[in-house]
């Protein structure tokens, strides 16, 4: 059964095919052309009137940096007469670090935890000792771990020990896939550590009970929030303070924040990517970009975006927003990130142990 076809259709089809390949060729040229001009620009950037920076950051900092980039641009313009255009990249903190390590050209990284910046250092892109390059362990703003509960707090959740009770549904992301969620886990550990005076078996038991109450172990903080907020799962979401505030902002009548007695000081770290700034000749502006995060103006932007300013005086201005009486441990109490990572989260670590036994 041969279908006889009019020649005209065939011609149209052929013409279409040629058009498509021509188009492909054309856009190929145009994109190549564009990238070569980019390259020229970056070569001559030092002296040009416009300077570009790439800031690779993690997820919920977009509004913070959107506001900050404008402020910094006008500050830099006043100082040097140059225009700064900052390209932002946001994603999961660990994934972002990996991409920079694999060749994503970032002038600065502003990630969720020191451990992720260390991964970029280990790739040979950032020099040792970056933590002390800027004030407060290179963490210009901080946050902490709090609980988000449904309005009226029906399960009467006040502190960490309420989360291990029977019948309480907990939502938290998987610390193995989410850098932010490692802070959640460590905050719970810090509480149990105080409760049981460092008796490791009891602490592990506590953590195990806590994760037995976890209904959904999402892969990232945002997924966990969706599970809790949009899909109505669980009674309590363990979240970063700034993210909890964002949920409250969207649904002021449905949720409230509970601050536990003990939590951890979450320090999102910033660093200059030495290899990249040296190659692109942007060290000066990149340094100033991170330094200016500590200015009063920038600190207030951080506060407005629900991050705790590292400047104590400015932090006090936000005492009606943040609970400043919380007892905060730091990552140093866990012996630093490399040690904490190895003990708790790498394969065969405590977190795996918890799940293996529950099988």
């Amino acid at each position, binding site marked *: *059964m041969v279908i006889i076809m009019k020649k005209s259709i065939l011609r149209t089809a052929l013409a279409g095919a040629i058009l498509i390949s021509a188009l492909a060729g054309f856009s190929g040229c145009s994109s190549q052309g564009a990238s070569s001009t980019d390259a020229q620009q970056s070569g001559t950037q030092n002296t040009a009137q416009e300077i570009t920076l790439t800031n690779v950051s993690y997820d919920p900092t977009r509004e913070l940096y959107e506001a900050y980039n404008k402020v910094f641009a006008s500050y830099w313009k006043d100082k040097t007469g140059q225009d700064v255009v900052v390209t932002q990249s946001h994603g*999961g903190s*660990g*994934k972002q670090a*990996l991409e920079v*390590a694999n060749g994503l050209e970032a002038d600065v990284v502003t990630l969720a935890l020191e451990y992720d910046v260390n*991964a970029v250092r*280990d790739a040979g892109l950032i020099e040792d000792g970056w933590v002390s390059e800027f004030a407060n362990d290179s963490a210009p703003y901080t946050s902490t771990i709090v609980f988000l509960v449904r309005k009226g707090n029906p399960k009467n959740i006040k502190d960490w020990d309420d989360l291990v009770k029977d019948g309480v549904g907990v939502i938290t992301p*998987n610390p*193995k*896939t*989410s*850098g932010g969620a490692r802070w959640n886990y460590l905050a719970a550990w810090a509480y149990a550590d105080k409760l049981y005076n460092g008796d490791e078996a009891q602490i592990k038991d506590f953590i195990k009970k806590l994760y037995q109450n*976890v*209904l*959904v*172990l*999402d*892969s990232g903080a945002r*997924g966990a929030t*969706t*599970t809790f907020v*949009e*899909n*109505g*799962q669980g009674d309590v979401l363990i979240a970063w303070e700034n993210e909890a505030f964002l949920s409250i902002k969207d649904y002021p009548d449905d949720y409230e924040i509970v601050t536990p007695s003990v939590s951890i000081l979450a320090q999102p770290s910033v660093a200059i990517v030495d290899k990249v700034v040296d190659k692109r000749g942007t060290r000066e502006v990149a340094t100033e970009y991170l330094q200016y995060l500590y200015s009063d103006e920038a600190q207030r932007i951080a506060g407005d975006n629900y991050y705790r300013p590292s400047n104590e005086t400015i932090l006090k201005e936000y005492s009606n927003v943040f609970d400043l009486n919380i007892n905060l441990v730091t990552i140093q109490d866990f012996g630093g990130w490399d040690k904490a*990572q190895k003990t708790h*989260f*790498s*394969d065969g670590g405590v977190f*795996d142990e918890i*799940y*293996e036994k529950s*099988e």
Partner: protein
Amino acid sequence: MKRATKRVIPGFGLSMGVTLSILSLVVLIPLASLVVFTANMDFGDVIATITRKRVLAGFEVSILTALIASLINAVMGVVLAWVLVRYDFPLKRIIDGMIELPFALPTAVAGIALTSLTADTGLIGGFFDKLGIKIAYTRIGIIIALVFIGIPFVVRAVQPVLEKLDGSYEEAALVMGASRTRIFWKVIFPEIRPAVFTGFGLAFGRCLGEYGSVVFIAGNQPYETEIVPLIIMSELQEYDYSSATAIALVMLAISFIILFGVNLIQMRNAKILKGGR
């Protein structure tokens, strides 16, 4: 007969050349780098990595859910293709047009939408919750997401073959008094079987590797609803490239074996078909 007329048709060199060079550039060389990377690892380490309890449990979850989902898709795909080719009914064009939508929708969006539908607060989930069945955050949820992802494969593989199918055999069979069920199994099904196998194989492979939609609906509990791609992702987050690539290589091998099997069956079928004529 076939052997006698070997390569009568021109264009073998050109078409093989183009095929092989594009294949190498896009598929073979990049996949080879995965193998090279894993080869740097000690063999014992590779085995230790891929036989970890949690990884094995992940494989169990992935393979089981992908298998069920692609079986559902195989059956529904044939039904849909049949309905779309053989019958006229209202809204036919629209339904036909919608088949590809699961491809166009980013998997993450599909996952979020399906989760909100099947969570116990959602439209479908609420209904099943009353019957005591939970969908979202269980393996059933994973299967639902995978069915969604795999819909187009079988339908679009079977549809063109059905369209091309010559009606005369069926007519002859009908005239000779064969029952319709018999006609389907004896006349039509052998013709579309290779296409069904292709579609099934592709859907299965795709479901096995699916990540974006599943992570939202699965609940991701280790040993229960944690899929292999998620384990790979967590290895990457820990900057453990070796473990990630080792597990990835196993997945790759599984896909390859499935596809190779499907192709074997398909080629044999093609041969039988030709011989029968």
